[in-house]
């Protein structure tokens, strides 16, 4: 039981971490709550589905295509909409909801509302860890998250663009004074965020099914993680994602499976009230 709960927790936690990291990246750079990320995930998943089924591409090529679509759509959201509300934080939720409606309904109109399965070659496999079982799609999720987090860490720490993004997210004005071109950093972060969304589509799509609202519900959990970890704090998001996944899994098995989501949301409410800047942040950023 314990091992099973832990294993479930790691799978769930990986999903949250992957989602949250994409969200927190754009949050740090722009202070925009990017609800539209759910729409990017959806379109990326449909791209993979279309490439794989209608265009008969091999699964891995389709997955790559989906990632590119994710990146491009995400950059488009920045260029067409978010760019104009950077200085107006209270307009951001309106824009985000508008974008989400646009993206989800584009998927609905193009592909219909039916639930369709995205099927990687390992869809039917299962792996055993002691007495606990993990579906292969779950293992793929863990693997994808691990690789993505590592790649992201290397990017942010070791490359010039990555360091520039970190600078902008810490203090945009200072970064601009130092000669960093802000516009370019925004575009790059949204692109990476879009790729991360594509990875979520790749890993999460096979677990349930692809349909226009597939990511709307889990995005809420991702928000919990983003707030817990501190807005803009990538490492914080990754760690808290894992923690939240474990918390919800243990809660589901030992307390009540029906209220699984409730634990996460309750924690968020607590955090917002007691320590809005997150568990890990030590920046003196004004919270209001």
């Amino acid at each position, binding site marked *: 039981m314990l091992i099973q709960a832990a294993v479930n927790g790691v799978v769930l936690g990986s999903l949250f971490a992957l989602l949250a990291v994409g969200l927190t990246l754009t949050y740090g750079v722009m*202070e925009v*709550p990017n609800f539209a990320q759910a729409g990017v995930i959806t379109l990326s998943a449909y791209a993979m589905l279309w490439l794989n089924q209608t265009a008969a591409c091999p699964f891995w090529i389709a997955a790559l295509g989906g990632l590119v679509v994710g990146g491009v759509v995400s950059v488009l959201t920045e260029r*067409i*909409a978010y760019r*104009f*509300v950077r*200085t*107006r*934080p*209270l*307009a*951001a*939720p*309106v*824009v985000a*909801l*508008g*974008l*989400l*409606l*646009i993206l*989800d*309904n*584009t998927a*609905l*109109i193009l592909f219909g*509302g039916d639930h369709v399965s995205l099927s990687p070659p390992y869809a039917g496999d299962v792996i055993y860890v002691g007495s606990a079982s993990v579906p292969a799609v779950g293992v793929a999720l863990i693997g994808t998250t691990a690789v993505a987090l590592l790649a992201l860490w290397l990017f942010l720490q070791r490359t010039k663009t990555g360091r520039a993004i970190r600078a902008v997210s810490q203090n945009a004005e200072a970064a601009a004074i130092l000669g960093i071109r802000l516009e370019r950093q925004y575009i790059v972060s949204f692109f990476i965020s879009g790729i991360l969304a594509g990875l979520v589509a790749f890993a999460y799509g096979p677990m349930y099914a692809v349909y226009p609202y597939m990511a709307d519900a889990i995005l*809420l959990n991702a*928000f*919990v993680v983003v*707030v817990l970890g501190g*807005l803009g704090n990538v490492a914080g998001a990754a760690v808290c994602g894992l923690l939240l996944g474990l918390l919800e899994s243990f809660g589901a098995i030992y307390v009540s499976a*029906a*209220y699984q*989501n*409730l634990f996460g*949301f*309750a924690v*968020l*409410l607590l955090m*917002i*009230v007691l320590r*809005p800047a997150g568990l890990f942040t030590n920046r003196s950023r004004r*919270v*209001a």
Partner: protein
Amino acid sequence: MTEIGMYGQQETRQRVRPRPAWDYLGIALLGFGLWVLLVESNSFYSSVLATILIWTIATSGLNIIAGLGGYPSLVQGAFYGIGAYGSALAMKWGQPFWAACIEAVLAAGILGLIVGLVFSRTRGQYFAIGTMFTGLVVSLVLSNWQSLTNGLLGINVEFGFGSINQLNVVIPAAAAFSLMLVRFVSRRRLGWRLLTILEDEDLAEHIGVPTARTKLTGFVLSACVGAVAGVLIAQYNGTISPDLFDYYVGFVMFVALSVGGAGRVLGPLLGSAFIVGTPDLLNLSSGIGLLLAGIIFVVVIIVIPGGFMSAIDAVMAAASRSVRR
């Protein structure tokens, strides 16, 4: 004098308002016109209009804390739902209609008090996220509490009015009253204080405005008005289900207010008309209708930060300029 509104738009406010009675008369006349429209239209258009008016009530309530006070509350949907479910359940348990209404509004007010206290030191983005998740938690608990709310099946609502005609009078009347309420509050001490909080909360506190109490009052008032809207939608449809207070509803109400014109008396009416009317009246398949709505949200909030009301202002100002020339 020029002030900065909630969305960064520049606004001119007149210091002296010569004839307040005209405002109320105007709104009353509008309410009358809406009643005529409501009873003259056939049942389908009539139901769309009724929904618009009920949403106007809820978003007018929201206008107090979000429009005047600048606090982006995304939880109005929960109060709307509590109004609906509260009154329906109270009647089921034997309460007469008027008592049921009061109890539902009271329940929403109490929840508003609790939520307001919990978030008393939270602001901006965090307030938005926090209220949204509160709405989510309320919605989760109520829709899964099958023994109380009957879950997805929903509840049928006893009709509390004497006749449909009475209901048809109450709905536009309540909408007009909710608009008048915002007009009233905005010129009273509560309204002025909320506006100072919108401008600069820390400065307001510094000069002695009791910000905590003001915000709480505004929030509870918003909640109560939202509950009234909920009572009316329950009566009008005769049936309610959990998606009435899905967290999504609170979000959309905030968007409706923003797009119509936050802080403006008629903003809620325009915003609700747009949000409710677009999918239903254009008779498009739901996907295209919502896509259009999404595009318009984005365009409006980017191009016309003050919402439809500020666009109308600009048009009428240009017209009066050209007339004077």
